[in-house]
C-alpha cells in the first residue's frame, strides 16, 4: 500500500511540476529523452517493451494480450490492491446526470495516462508502489452542447501517445495534443461537430504521424466518417465517409427517395486496428439510422454494420464486409476487428475477427474481405436461423428484396410495431473489447446475454431535426439480462468455453499467458484461468466496472490497472434489465493491483 508520506509525495509532485514548468518557460523545448518519444517504430514493436501499454488496444492488432507473467495462475490468488486514485469527471451535462469511466489506461515507463468521461487527461506517476498525480489536463468540454447529443453516456475511452504528446478526444468533437511533460495543451483541432449530432467517445489510433478519429451519432442522423489528422501540420489528411456520396460505389444500396443516406448513420466510435503489412486500417462501422424503421431506408445501406478496410495513407476503401444488411435491430458493427494469423489448409490465414452486436462472431480474410467462418457466441439468437456457410450472410437475407425482414415474426417493422429480439439491441457484444491469446489461439468475448423489446416508430423526413433522436422507435427492458465471457478457438471457429456471469460484461477483457482479467458492473474484478475460464480471484471494487483492465510494469513489478465508475448507456437506458444495479453509485476511481 502507500509507503511514502504525504509530504514526500507533495514534494515530489511540486518538484516535477516546477521542473517541467521551468523548462517549458525557459526554452519552449522540453527535457524529453529519445526513449520517451513515441515513434512509429515503437508502436510497431510493442512486443519489445512488454512493461508498457502503448496502444489503446495494446497492439495494432487489438490483441489486448500482455506477455507479463509475474502474476499468473499459481499466485493470482494473492493479488491485492496496491493503490487507488480518485478521479473527477463525474458531473452531469446535457441529458446525462453523471459521467462514467470506460477508458483503457496507457502506460509508458512507469507513468499512466487515463481519461475521465468528460475528456480530462490525468498523468499519474506509478513509481514506488503508489500513484501520484503529475498533471491533469481539463479540456473544458462544453457539457450541455455535447451531453445533449451523446446517445450513450458521458464517455471517453482513453488517449494515445505520439512524440512527446498525449493525443486525446473530447465529447464535444475536438482532437487535443497535450505536452506529455507539462500537461499544457500544445494544440487542438475541431474534428466533429455536435451541431450535427456528432460526438467523439473513442480513443485515437495513431498511424504514421496521423491520429485516426471515429465519430458517434447514428442515433442523431449523422453521416458517419473516419478522419485522419496529420500530427505535425495539424491538418486533415483524409476523411472517408462510411456512407457513400451520390454516385459513389455503394450509393446504390440506398434506394429510397428521402435521401436517407445523408442522415444514414454508420458511426465509428470504437478504435480500429492497423495491419502494417498491407498499410490497411480496419474499422468497425455502426448501425444505419433510423435504427428500427428500415423501411425508411430500403437497400442494404452500405457501409453500415460492416467491417471496413481503408488504405491508411489515402483513406480509400479497399474492401468491406457487411454483417446485417438493411439492419432493423440496431445491430451495429462498430466493434474492433482483431487481427490474427492462424494456420490454414493452404498456409497461414490472415484473419480479422469481429464479435458483432447481432450475436455472431465473424472471421474475415483480411486480405480481401471474404467470409471465412461465423458462429453465434450468445446463448440465444431469434432474428435469424443462422449464417449462410458460403457468404456468412443471415440465411434469410434476400439480395432482391429492398427491405429485409429476416425472421419476420420477431423483426421490428412497420407491420410488426412491437416485438422482442434476441440479442437485445445492445448486443451480443457492445464496445467493451475482446482479447486474444496468440499462444492458446483463444479469443475471449465480453458478452451481453440478452433480449429486449423494440417498439417501431414510422419515420418521415419532417421528423429529422438537428440534435434530435433519429431512431424510428426505441427499446424497453422487460427481460433480465445476464452476461458471460465466451472463448472461441480461432483455429476451429468453435466455442471453447463460456463462463456465465450474473450481469452483462460492460468492461471488456485483458489476456495474459495463462489468465484473463475482466469485471462486472456489480463491482467485481475477476481473474479467470485462460483455458478453463474457472474463476481464480475476485475483488469487489464497490463501484460498477465499465472499463477494460490492462497491465504494465514499473520498478520491475507487474501491476493490473482498471478504471471503475458505472456510466455509459446502461444505467440510464437499460437498467431495468438489471434492477440490482440500480444500487450501484456513480463513481470515478482508478484501481491498481499487484502481488
Amino acid at each position: 500500500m502507500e509507503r511514502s508520506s504525504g509530504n514526500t509525495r507533495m514534494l515530489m509532485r511540486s518538484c516535477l511540476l516546477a521542473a517541467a514548468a521551468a523548462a517549458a518557460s525557459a526554452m519552449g523545448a522540453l527535457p524529453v529523452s529519445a526513449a520517451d518519444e513515441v515513434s512509429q517504430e515503437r508502436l510497431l514493436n510493442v512486443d519489445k517493451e512488454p512493461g508498457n501499454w502503448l496502444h489503446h488496444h495494446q497492439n495494432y492488432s487489438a490483441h489486448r494480450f500482455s506477455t507479463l507473467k509475474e502474476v499468473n495462475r499459481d499466485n493470482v490468488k494473492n493479488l491485492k490492491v496496491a493503490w487507488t486514485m480518485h478521479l473527477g469527471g463525474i458531473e452531469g451535462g446535457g441529458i446525462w446526470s453523471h459521467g462514467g469511466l470506460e477508458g483503457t489506461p496507457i502506460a509508458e515507463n512507469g507513468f499512466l495516462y487515463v481519461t475521465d468521461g468528460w475528456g480530462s487527461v490525468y498523468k499519474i506517476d506509478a513509481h514506488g508502489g503508489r500513484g501520484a498525480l503529475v498533471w491533469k489536463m481539463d479540456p473544458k468540454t462544453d457539457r450541455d452542447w455535447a451531453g445533449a447529443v451523446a446517445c450513450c453516456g458521458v464517455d471517453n475511452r482513453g488517449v494515445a501517445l505520439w512524440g512527446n504528446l498525449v493525443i486525446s478526444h473530447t465529447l464535444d468533437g475536438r482532437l487535443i495534443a497535450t505536452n506529455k511533460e507539462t500537461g499544457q495543451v500544445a494544440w487542438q483541432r475541431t474534428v466533429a461537430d455536435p451541431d450535427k449530432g456528432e460526438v467523439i467517445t473513442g480513443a485515437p489510433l495513431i498511424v504514421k504521424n496521423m491520429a485516426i478519429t471515429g465519430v458517434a451519432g447514428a442515433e442523431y442522423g449523422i453521416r458517419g466518417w473516419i478522419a485522419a489528422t496529420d500530427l505535425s501540420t495539424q491538418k486533415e489528411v483524409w476523411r472517408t465517409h462510411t456512407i457513400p456520396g451520390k454516385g459513389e460505389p455503394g450509393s446504390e444500396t440506398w434506394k429510397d427517395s428521402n435521401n436517407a443516406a445523408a442522415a444514414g448513420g454508420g458511426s465509428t466510435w470504437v478504435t480500429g486496428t492497423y495491419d502494417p503489412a498491407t498499410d490497411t486500417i480496419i474499422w468497425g462501422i455502426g448501425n444505419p439510422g433510423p435504427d428500427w424503421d428500415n423501411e425508411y431506408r430500403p437497400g442494404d445501406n452500405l457501409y453500415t454494420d460492416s467491417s471496413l478496410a481503408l488504405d491508411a495513407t489515402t483513406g480509400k476503401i479497399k474492401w468491406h464486409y457487411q454483417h446485417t444488411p438493411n439492419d432493423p435491430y440496431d445491430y451495429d458493427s462498430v466493434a474492433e476487428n482483431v487481427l490474427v494469423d492462424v494456420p490454414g489448409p493452404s498456409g497461414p490465414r490472415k484473419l480479422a475477427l469481429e464479435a458483432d452486436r447481432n450475436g455472431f462472431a465473424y472471421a474475415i480474410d483480411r486480405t480481401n474481405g471474404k467470409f471465412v467462418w461465423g458462429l453465434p457466441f450468445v446463448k440465444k439468437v431469434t432474428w435469424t436461423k443462422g449464417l449462410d456457410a458460403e457468404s456468412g450472410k443471415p440465411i434469410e437475407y434476400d439480395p432482391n428484396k429492398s427491405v429485409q425482414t429476416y425472421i419476420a415474426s420477431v423483426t421490428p417493422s412497420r407491420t410488426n410495431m412491437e416485438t422482442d429480439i434476441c440479442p437485445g439491441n445492445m448486443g451480443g457484444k457492445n464496445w467493451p473489447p475482446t482479447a486474444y491469446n496468440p499462444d492458446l489461439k483463444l479469443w475471449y468475448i465480453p458478452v451481453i446475454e440478452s433480449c429486449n423489446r423494440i417498439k417501431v416508430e414510422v419515420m418521415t423526413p419532417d421528423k429529422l431535426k438537428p440534435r434530435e433522436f433519429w431512431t424510428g422507435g426505441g427499446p424497453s427492458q422487460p427481460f433480465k439480462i445476464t452476461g458471460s465471457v465466451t472463448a472461441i478457438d480461432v483455429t476451429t471457429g468453435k466455442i471453447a468455453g463460456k463462463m456465465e456471469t450474473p450481469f452483462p460484461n460492460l468492461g471488456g477483457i485483458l489476456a495474459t499467458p495463462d489468465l484473463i482479467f475482466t469485471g462486472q458492473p456489480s463491482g467485481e474484478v475477476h481473474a479467470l484461468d485462460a483455458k478453463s475460464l474457472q474463476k481464480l480471484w475476485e475483488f469487489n471494487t464497490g463501484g460498477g466496472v465499465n472499463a477494460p483492465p490492462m497491465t504494465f510494469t514499473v520498478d520491475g513489478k507487474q501491476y493490473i490497472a482498471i478504471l471503475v465508475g458505472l456510466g455509459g448507456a446502461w444505467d440510464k437506458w437499460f437498467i431495468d434489465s438489471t434492477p440490482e444495479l440500480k444500487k450501484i453509485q456513480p463513481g470515478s476511481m482508478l484501481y491498481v493491483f499487484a502481488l
Partner: protein
Amino acid sequence: MMVFNRFPAAAGVLLAIVVALNFSMSAAAYGQPAQAPASDPTNAGKAVFSRANCVGCHKWHGNGGGGYGGDALSLRKTELTRDQIIETVGCGRPGTGMPFFLRGAYDEVKCHDMNRQDAGAQMPPEGGTFLRPKDIEAVSDYVIAHIKGGGEPTFAECVAFFSSTSRVCDVYKTQAQKPDDAAAASTGKGQ
C-alpha cells in the same frame, strides 16, 4: 441514478387515470406560490426543471421524444392543466418511466388513490431528487408559462434556458443570426 427508461402505456389511458383518480394532496395544500425574482416569476421553476433532471428525458425544450430511452411525452404539446402537471410531477405516471418527485408519495400519501402496494408493478420510479411542494408548483408554473403550447424550439428560448456560454443553442440560430460562425468553424482552432 436515472431510471427513466420505460415506455409509457397508451397515453390516452394514462391521461384518463391522471384526470380521474383522486389526488390526495390538492394543489391548494401546497400553500403560497413559489417565490422568484420579480423579473420572471417562473425562474425558480426553470431551476427546478434542471435540478430535478426533467431535461434528462424531456430535454431542455420539453419536447421529449423517442430514442434509446423511450418516449418522454412532449410538454410543448401537452394538454394537462396546471393541477394535472403538479399531480404528475408529484406522483409520477404509473406504468411509465415518469418518476414521482414528492417525498412520501405512495407511502405517506396516496397517489392516484393508490399506495405502494396498490400500485404494484405499475409503481413509477423514484425521482433522482425529491421536490418540495413549492418546487413542484414552481416547475409546473414554468412548464405552463414557457413550454406548454410552444411550437418548434427557438434560439431565444434556448438562450433563456441556459443563460450560459455553451454552444448548445447555436443550432437554433436562424441564418440571419449566425454571420460569424462559418468563419470560426473553418479555422478548426481556438475553442
